[in-house]
């Protein structure tokens, strides 16, 4: 079992295009693969593989929300005044809790003289699992509007994938953008990271932060430069970083309209436009990825793993010591 995370820090640089190409290429080579779409705020990996029907749909519950028992409520309005989030309104006949605003703190329940307010789990979205027409499993999730991705949700998407994929599969994780909680969860328990960068300052800056996070987890990194020809001078700067930081360089991909058109057709670009420049580049990269990262994982891990731990220390804000004597 091997779990490789495709991440970038910045969004929209080609994580899904790269991960779908890896999955499509490895599958065509007859390998057992499983797709994990950890980008649950904007899930789209399934669209590239044309998945429109899910075999497994499970409710995902995480937070709490307050609920009023109208049999007991006497409309005294104390809860409405005390709610720190102003989530309770009165419509003239009854009090209503706005589920989107409610944080589940239960101040209302505490102050209610009638004990008419209790809490229930909020359904944040659904976990889903299925099979692509290429014959490999895919797992992901879809959130309700206003509900955040979380480390817990990514953990559950990953464990659903493992139920579907089994012990011998190669797992390719399409990570969410950013380097927050959900990305940390995508990295934890994985075996390596593929960074996707485009030659822009924003993408490069975010990729560096992503690489710092990979180093924190003592994971080896590989790097792909996407849309390399839109800014060739900057590409050189990225390559200098790759050499300095001991990252495995997988190659570059040119800009090509075939990518957005293939997405609109709901097909992997390797299948939709196999002779395009971008497909040639993606095939070469996938071939190198299979040889060096998948089959040569032990060697790759030894060579490109950070030599010593480099913890990524987040900003710590400590409250000032109180000077008031008690």
């Amino acid at each position, binding site marked *: 079992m091997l779990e490789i995370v495709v991440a970038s820090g910045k969004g929209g640089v080609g994580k899904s295009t790269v991960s779908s190409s890896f999955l499509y290429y490895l599958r065509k080579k007859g390998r057992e693969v499983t797709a994990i779409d950890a980008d649950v705020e904007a899930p789209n990996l399934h669209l590239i593989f044309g998945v429109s029907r899910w075999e497994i749909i499970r409710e995902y519950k995480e937070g709490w929300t307050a609920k009023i028992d109208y049999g007991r409520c006497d409309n005294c309005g104390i809860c409405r005044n005390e709610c720190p989030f102003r989530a309770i309104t009165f419509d003239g006949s009854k009090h209503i809790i706005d589920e989107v605003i409610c944080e589940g703190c239960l101040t209302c329940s505490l102050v209610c003289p009638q004990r008419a307010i209790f809490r229930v789990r909020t359904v944040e979205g659904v976990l889903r699992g299925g099979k692509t027409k290429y014959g490999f499993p895919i797992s992901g999730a879809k959130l309700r509007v206003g509900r955040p991705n979380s480390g817990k949700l990514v*953990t559950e998407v990953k464990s659903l994938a493992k139920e579907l994929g089994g012990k011998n599969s190669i797992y390719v994780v399409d990570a969410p953008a950013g380097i927050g909680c959900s990305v940390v969860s995508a990295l934890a328990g994985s075996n390596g990271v593929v960074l996707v960068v485009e030659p822009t300052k924003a993408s490069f800056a975010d990729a560096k932060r992503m690489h710092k996070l990979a180093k*924190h*987890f003592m994971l080896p990194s590989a790097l792909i430069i996407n849309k390399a020809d839109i800014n060739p001078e900057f590409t050189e700067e990225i390559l200098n970083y790759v050499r300095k930081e001991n990252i495995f360089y997988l190659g570059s991909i040119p800009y090509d309209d075939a990518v957005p058109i293939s997405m609109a057709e709901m097909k992997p670009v390797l299948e939709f436009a196999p002779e395009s420049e971008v497909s040639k580049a993606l095939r070469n990269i996938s071939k190198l990825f299979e040889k060096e990262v998948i089959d040569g994982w032990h060697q790759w891990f030894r060579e490109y793993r950070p030599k010593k731990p480099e*913890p*990524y220390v987040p900003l710590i804000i400590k409250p000032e010591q109180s000077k008031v004597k008690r």
Partner: protein
Amino acid sequence: MRIAVVSDENKGLNSTVATRFARAKYIVIVDVDKEWNIKDVRVKDNSAVAGGSGAGVKIVQSLNELGVDVAVGPSFGPNATVALNEVGIKAVTAPPGITIKEVIKIVKEQLTI
């Protein structure tokens, strides 16, 4: 000394190290004496898994309350690393899948150097 090992199994000393630190299902608490003999083993549910985020800080909080000296996991996230430092719990990495008995050997090696 009190050692906490994260695991997805509730099998006492035969539990194995989980693939995740803060989001593992159980915390196995092992008490060892000065000669590294195992004196006591308890398995606790890890309450940190229930939260959407902040699991790293939450598990360290419960380890601190349990009076743990050494925490063992496959890897530690950024927040967990800082929190462990703050409360003075030593972090020891062990590969996922190995049993608690092997973990104690690793901890012994790491701490006696």
